């Protein structure tokens, strides 16, 4: 059916990705909570973030499903920093590391995080990230992989936190996309 230009004011469903949350911060914050989720129904999430460092120093941008702050995460990552290629492993980590911005207020960072949220198994987080964009210098590119050990709790919220007060600076953009099946 040809429909020309259409504004879908109601829900669009049809086995595709739909934006479920979108926020561009107009004032700095330490935490942003995306609530009202149902990981068992939605089945796929993609979190796309562009962070503006709201702190005059190093800031980590972290993700906590259901605000679980326990040491229930494990991760492995691959990175490039200038001419150094490296990797890291963290067991019993305290959060999903999304990305980071170093040094200065206003430096940028970006994360593209795929989440497979249904219960029954540990939940995987697959992240492509950029750390510390300042002018034309990029601090690092990285591919990190994290699992959340929890197998039973339905994901009903995603909490994005900075590890510095008001580290989520003005202009930070946080989007969540979810799979929406036809009804």
């Amino acid at each position, binding site marked *: *059916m*040809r*429909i*020309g*230009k*259409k*504004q*879908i*004011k*109601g*829900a*669009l469903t*049809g*086995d*595709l*990705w*739909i*934006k479920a949350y979108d926020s561009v911060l107009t004032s700095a914050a330490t935490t942003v909570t995306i609530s009202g989720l149902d990981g068992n129904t939605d089945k796929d999430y993609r979190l*796309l973030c*562009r962070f*503006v460092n709201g702190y005059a120093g190093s800031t980590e941008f972290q993700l906590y499903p259901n605000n679980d702050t326990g040491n229930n995460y*494990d991760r*492995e*990552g*691959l*990175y*490039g920093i*200038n*001419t150094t290629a*490296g*990797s*890291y*492993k963290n*067991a019993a980590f305290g959060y999903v590391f999304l990305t980071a911005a170093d040094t200065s207020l206003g430096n*940028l960072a*970006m994360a*593209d995080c795929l989440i*497979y949220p*249904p219960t029954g*198994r*540990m939940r*995987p987080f*697959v992240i*492509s*990230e*950029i750390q510390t*964009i300042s*002018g*034309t*210098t*990029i*601090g*690092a*590119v990285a*591919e990190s*992989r994290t699992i959340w*050990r929890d197998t039973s709790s339905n994901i009903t919220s995603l909490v994005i936190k900075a590890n510095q007060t008001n580290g989520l600076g003005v*202009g930070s*953009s946080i989007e969540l996309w979810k799979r929406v099946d*036809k009804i």
Partner: protein
Amino acid sequence: MKTGALAGTIYGNEWQMVYDSGELAAAVTSLTISNLNGDTDKEYRIISRLVSGAANTNFYVRPNNDAGTGTYGEQWINGANTTLAAYRQTTGIGFYNHYELNASGQVNFADLVLYAKSGYIRSGITKYMDGVVGGAIVNVGSVAGCWNNTADNITSIVIAADQTNGLGIGSRFILLRRADRDASTIGKTGKINAYGKIKGCFQKIYENDILSATTSVTVSGLDGNTDVLYRAVVRLVDGSGLGGGTNCVIRYNNDAGANYFFQHATGYYTAPFAGSTAFNGDLIAQDNVTTGSIEGFGEKLIFAKSGYVRTSLARMIGEYASGDVNYAMLLGNVWSNTADNITSMVFYSGQTNGFGVGSHIELWAYRP
């Protein structure tokens, strides 16, 4: 409202294609995607399958055709055979898209997500595989890019080669944008429940939660020449009981020959490495450890249309269990078959009952 297939410009908070070059019938030096509005669209995704039309060519994505030296920055992580390397560039002349090594005719494949709205430096992440000749790949990696322009609305994107006719015959570029609902008054609708194809979008066409262990899963009824692109997602729960050696590969048209080749870049403890090998399928998830019950996970973008070798890019978690994630992987794969339309995909685990209970397979198709 329940509908069948939909074709139109849909503002429904989805990603929708606004430009698809089709396969180029003649080589060109650059290609311009115009009538964009980065401040409204906010994000772009550019999927490119490039067939090099000239040797020793670099390829760039340039917002508003800005080729000014010093306005772009890049940071790379790259795997080439067994060499893993990193590079930084602070005087770039575009979002780096591809590098042609030394001969025309090489096939390259890349997926760029670009944050386009003005107000801040524009940033993008590209996963790429370069230098595909026959059944082999030279490079796979990820490059972080930035455009140090905070003010100008992106109204066009130029894909440029630095050699004449570098964008060779068969190249194809697809741009998707974020299509938000907005306040305009054009053609408002209520709820749309689409039962058919939605033009310009990726749609899920297959899903399987494995409830009884099995060795392979076949997805049939495909038409790779029509769909062009597929996205596959696999969670592999090793059900073999063998304690390792289970891999999930995708076999196109059930081709089980050693007609696949992958190049990876991998984080492993504090000793990253790269490697390449011929294989008997397109790897998407793995469990190679020798003990324990391990899982693997992967997402893969596949360029499926015939005429050239078929390429795919994957982000993978290789082998994980509580307390340990073994591998963080980027993987590029080539299937050397150029002729056959892909009509089926066999997800094969390599071991009897390798897909254990809890394994999950999804397949999505692009709707050109």
